[in-house]
C-alpha cells in the first residue's frame, strides 16, 4: 500500500516554523543553488514537497534537513519567496520533536508560553536552591581567611559553591540529559538507518566512517562548502567555545573554577578568554542578525531561537561579570553573578540540549555519519 497524503499535517508543521507552505511551486531553484545537496540526498525541494503532501513516514526518515547548515542562499533566490531555508529549519525542529520519545520537545516547540514557563521555573528553582542551601562565606572567619591566604585569592567562590559539589551536580545533569539525548539519537538512527530498507550497511563501515564524522564535528568543515564563509566562522567559534566550556565544566571544573587568580599567561585564562570571545562574538552576530532581519537566515525567528540566544547571551554576560568581579575582589557580586550564571545555564541545558535547538550538536554529526554510511553502502552495492 502506498503512502496516503495528509493535508492536515501541515497545520501541525506550521507550529514548528514558517507558515506559507503552499507558496513553493517546485521550480527546483533551491536545490540547484544549494552547494551541499547531492545525488541521493536532494534538498530542500523534496523535503518541502513531503511537507506539503503530509508524507509523515517519509519525513520522519529524512536525514537531509540535518545536512543543511542554513546559509540562506535558497531563500534569497527563491522566486516565490517560499523561504526554503526556513522550511529546512522547520523540518529540523519537527524532526527533533519526532526523535524525542518523551514528547516534551514537541510541546516546547509548539508553545512559546510553555517553553518560557519551564525556563522560568528552573531559573527560580536554581535561585531558590542557592537561597536555601548556600551560605555566603564570611571573609572574617579564620577558616576562610586561611583559605584565601593559601590560594593567594580575594574571593572564596569555592567556599560559596564548592567546585566538587557543582561538578557532582553537573554530572547528574549530564547523565539525565545525556540519557534523553542518547535515546533520542538512537531513535533517529532507527528512523533514518534501520527503517530504510533500500540499503544494507555492513558493520565494518560503521567503524570506517567514524573518523570522517568526527573530523566534521570538530571542524564543521561541511559548512565551509556554503558560499558565505563568515557563517562558518561564527558558527565554528560558537560551537568550539561551547564544546570547550562543556568539557571544562564537566570534566575539569576543579581546574577551571579556581579561586586562585592565575597569571595572564596561564592556559586556564587563555581558555576562558577564548570561550568568552567565541560566545560573545557569536551571540552578538546572532542577536543583531535576528533583530535586523536583513539576511535570509535571520528573517524568521522561532521562539526557540530567541530563548536560546537570550539564555546564551545571559550565560556569557554573567560569566564575564563573575570573572571581572572575582579579579576585582568584589566577593558578593561574584556570588550573585554565579547564581545567575547557573540560573541561566541549567534551563538552557535542560530545555535545549535534548529537547530543542541545541540537540543538533548531536543530530547533525550523526546525520553526516549516517548519510556517509548510506553513500558508501550504496556505492558498494552499485559496484557489486
Amino acid at each position, binding site marked *: *500500500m*502506498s*503512502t*496516503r*497524503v495528509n*493535508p*492536515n499535517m501541515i497545520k501541525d508543521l506550521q507550529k514548528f516554523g514558517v507558515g*506559507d507552505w*503552499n*507558496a513553493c*511551486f*517546485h521550480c527546483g531553484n533551491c536545490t540547484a543553488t544549494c552547494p551541499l545537496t547531492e545525488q541521493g540526498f536532494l534538498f530542500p525541494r*523534496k523535503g518541502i*514537497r*513531503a511537507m*506539503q*503532501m*503530509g*508524507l509523515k513516514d*517519509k519525513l520522519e526518515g529524512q536525514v537531509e534537513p540535518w545536512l543543511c547548515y542554513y546559509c540562506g542562499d535558497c531563500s534569497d533566490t527563491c522566486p516565490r519567496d517560499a523561504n526554503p531555508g526556513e522550511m529546512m529549519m522547520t523540518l529540523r525542529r519537527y524532526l527533533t520533536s519526532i526523535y524525542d520519545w518523551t514528547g516534551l520537545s514537541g510541546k516546547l516547540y509548539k508553545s512559546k508560553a510553555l517553553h518560557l514557563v519551564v525556563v522560568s521555573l528552573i531559573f527560580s528553582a536554581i535561585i531558590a536552591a542557592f537561597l536555601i542551601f548556600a551560605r555566603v562565606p564570611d571573609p572574617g572567619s579564620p577558616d576562610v581567611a586561611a583559605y584565601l591566604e593559601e590560594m593567594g585569592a580575594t574571593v572564596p567562590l569555592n567556599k560559596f559553591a564548592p567546585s566538587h559539589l557543582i561538578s557532582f551536580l553537573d554530572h547528574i545533569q549530564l547523565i539525565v540529559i545525556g540519557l534523553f539525548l542518547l535515546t533520542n539519537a538512537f531513535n533517529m538512527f532507527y528512523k533514518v538507518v534501520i527503517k530504510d530498507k533500500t540499503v544494507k550497511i555492513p558493520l565494518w563501515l560503521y567503524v570506517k566512517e567514524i573518523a570522517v564524522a568526527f573530523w566534521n564535528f570538530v571542524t564543521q568543515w561541511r559548512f565551509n562548502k556554503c558560499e558565505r564563509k563568515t557563517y562558518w566562522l561564527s558558527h565554528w567559534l560558537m560551537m568550539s567555545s561551547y564544546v570547550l566550556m562543556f568539557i571544562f565544566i564537566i570534566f575539569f571544573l576543579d581546574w577551571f573554577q579556581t579561586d586562585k587568580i592565575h597569571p595572564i599567561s596561564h592556559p586556564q585564562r587563555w581558555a576562558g578568554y577564548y570561550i568568552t570571545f567565541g560566545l560573545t562574538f557569536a551571540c552578538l552576530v546572532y542577536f543583531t542578525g535576528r533583530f535586523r532581519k536583513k539576511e535570509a537566515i535571520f528573517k524568521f525567528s522561532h521562539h526557540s531561537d530567541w530563548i536560546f540566544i537570550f539564555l546564551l547571551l545571559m550565560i556569557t554576560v554573567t560569566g564575564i561579570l563573575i570573572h571581572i568581579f572575582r579579579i576585582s575582589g568584589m566577593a558578593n557580586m561574584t556570588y550573585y553573578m554565579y547564581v545567575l550564571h547557573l540560573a541561566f545555564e541549567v534551563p538552557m541545558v535542560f530545555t535545549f540540549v535534548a529537547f530543542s535547538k541545541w540537540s543538533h550538536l548531536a543530530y547533525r554529526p550523526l546525520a553526516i555519519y549516517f548519510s556517509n554510511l548510506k553513500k558508501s553502502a550504496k556505492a558498494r552495492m552499485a559496484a557489486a
Partner: protein
Amino acid sequence: MEEQRIGVYVCWCGSNIAKMVDVEAVAEEIGRKPNVVISKNYKYMCSDPGQDLIVKDIKDHNLDRVVVAACSPRIHELTFRKALQNAGLNPYFFEMANIREQDSWVHEDRDAATRKAVDLISAAVRRIQFHEALDKRTVTIDPATLVLGGGIAGLSAALEIADAGKKVFLVERSGKLGGRAAELDLTFPYLNSARQMMAPILQRVQNHPDIDVFLDSHVDETFGYVGNFECTVVGKDGKETGLKFGNTVVATGLKTYDPSPMENYGYGKLPNVVTSVEFEKMLLDGKIETKDGKVPGNVAIIHCVGSRNKDIHEYCSRTCCVTALKYANQVCSALPETNVYELYMDMRAFGKGCEEMYARSSRRNIMFLMFDKEGLPTVTKAPAGDTCEMVVEIDEKLSGETVEVPADLVVLMVAAEAQENARDVAHAVGVSMCGNDFFIERHPKLDPVATTTDGVYIAGGCQGPKDIPDSIAQARAAASRILATIAQGEVNVEVTTAVVNEDLCCGCQTCISVCPYTAVSYDEEKNVSTVNEVLCKGCGTCGSTCPTGAIRSRHFTDQQILSQIEGLLSKEVA
C-alpha cells in the same frame, strides 16, 4: 502579336538582393530582350519614389506591361498593381519575379545567383506577353445575417449585428437560448454569477425587434455565395421557413467528453465519480454531497480527463484548469472542513486574472498533486472500514512518490470536444474542419474569425475550446466583419477564376468532384460544366484535372505558364 512595350525594374532591396545579385548587369542584360523597352535598377522599388518611377515611365515611354524583379509577390504584388492602376494600366498587366526569397537569400555564389536572376526575369518577361486585362467584379450584400447557435457566442454576434439595425436570424437546435454559459453557477476568475450575467443578454435577444429566434430548429443546407445566401430553417414540428441573408455566423459550440471509456477513473461504476458538468449542476443546486446525501470529507478534482491524451484528444481543453480552481475555491468556502485535492498535469491558468486566481487558490487549504500524462491516476473503492469511500492512486511527479489520495467525491474535469453533428454543420454552411472536428479559421493568426468560404464566419467553441471572454471577442469580431461588408453594400470577388470552354467540355464532371469550393456545377441541358464565378477562388485544381483542356484558369492559362517555363529554360546563344 502586336508589338508590346515592357518595362522591367530590378530592385536592390537595399543590400538584400544587391549583395548577391549584380543588379546592374541583370538590368542591362534584360534590357536587350525583345519587347523590353526599358530596364532599370533601383534601390527600393516598393518605396514611393520607386513606384513613382514606374508610373512616370508608363506615361513617358507608353509602357503597356511591367515586370518588377524584387521580393515575393505575397509581399508587394498588390503594391505594384496599384501603381499600374494609378498610371492607367490594367493591374493584371503586371508580373513579379522573385529574386530575393528564391535567389539572393538562398545562394552564396554571386555569379550563379546573378545568372538565376536573369533566368527568373526572362521567364516573367515571356509570361507577361500573354497577360490579359481582367476587370474586378462586385456583388451586392444582403444585409440580413444567419447566426447558427444560441450560446454566448451566437447571442453576442446576434446582438452586435441587430444593434446596428441589421436583421438577424438566430437558429438554435435546442429548446432554449444560453448554451453552456447558462448551465454555469459561477464564472472564473472572479466568481461572478453566470445567471446574473446571462439574464439581461437573453432578455435583450428575445425582445429585440431585429432578431428572429428559431428554437428547436436546424438548417440542413445553405445555398448561394457571399452576400446572397439562402436556406430553409426546419422547426421541431417540421415547419419550414425560407430565409435570405448575406452572411453567416457559425457559433454551434461544443460538447463535453463522456469519460466512461476511461476505466482508470471508474466513471459509471463508482457512484461518487462525477463529471465537471454534473458537479456544476450540484453547485447550481447549492448542494455538494455524495449520492447518499452525505457531506464529502475529501473532494478530489482530476484534471485533463480526455484532454492532452493521445488516445482521446491531444489538445488542451483550455478552460478546465481554471474551472477546477473555481470548484476547489467553492468547495473550500462551502465546506471548510473538507479536504480538497487538485490532481493536475500542468496548471494552465493563462487568462486574464487566472494566474492570480491560481496564486490565491494555492494559499488556501487545497493540496495540489501533479501527475504525468504517461501515468494517469486510478480511482478505486476504498477497502471496508477505511475513513473514505474511494482511494485515488497517483504517481506524484513533484515528489517522485506513489501516493494515495482519500476521496468521497471525485470530480472529473472532462474535455471539451466538437459537437457530434459538426460535420453536418460544416457541410451545410461550407466551412472546413481541422483534425479534431472543430471548424477551421481562414488563417490561424491573421484571420481568426473568417473561413475559407466568403461570408461565413466562425465564433466560440465550434472553432476550438474557449472561455466566455474569448467566445464573445470572436463573436463580436465576426459581427464587425459582417457589419463592414454590409456597410460597403457590395464586395469584391476574385477575378482570376476558371472559365469553361463549352465547345471542348465533354461533360465528364471530373472538375465538379475536385473543386474544394463547390463552384463548379453541371448544366444537364448543354452537357457541360459551368463555373460560378462568385464561388470560384481560382485555385486551378479543375483546370489541371480537366482531361480535354476545356477549363482555363484566368491569369494562369496554359500559354502563360508554358511561356514562363520556356523563359526559364531557354538560353540565348551568344
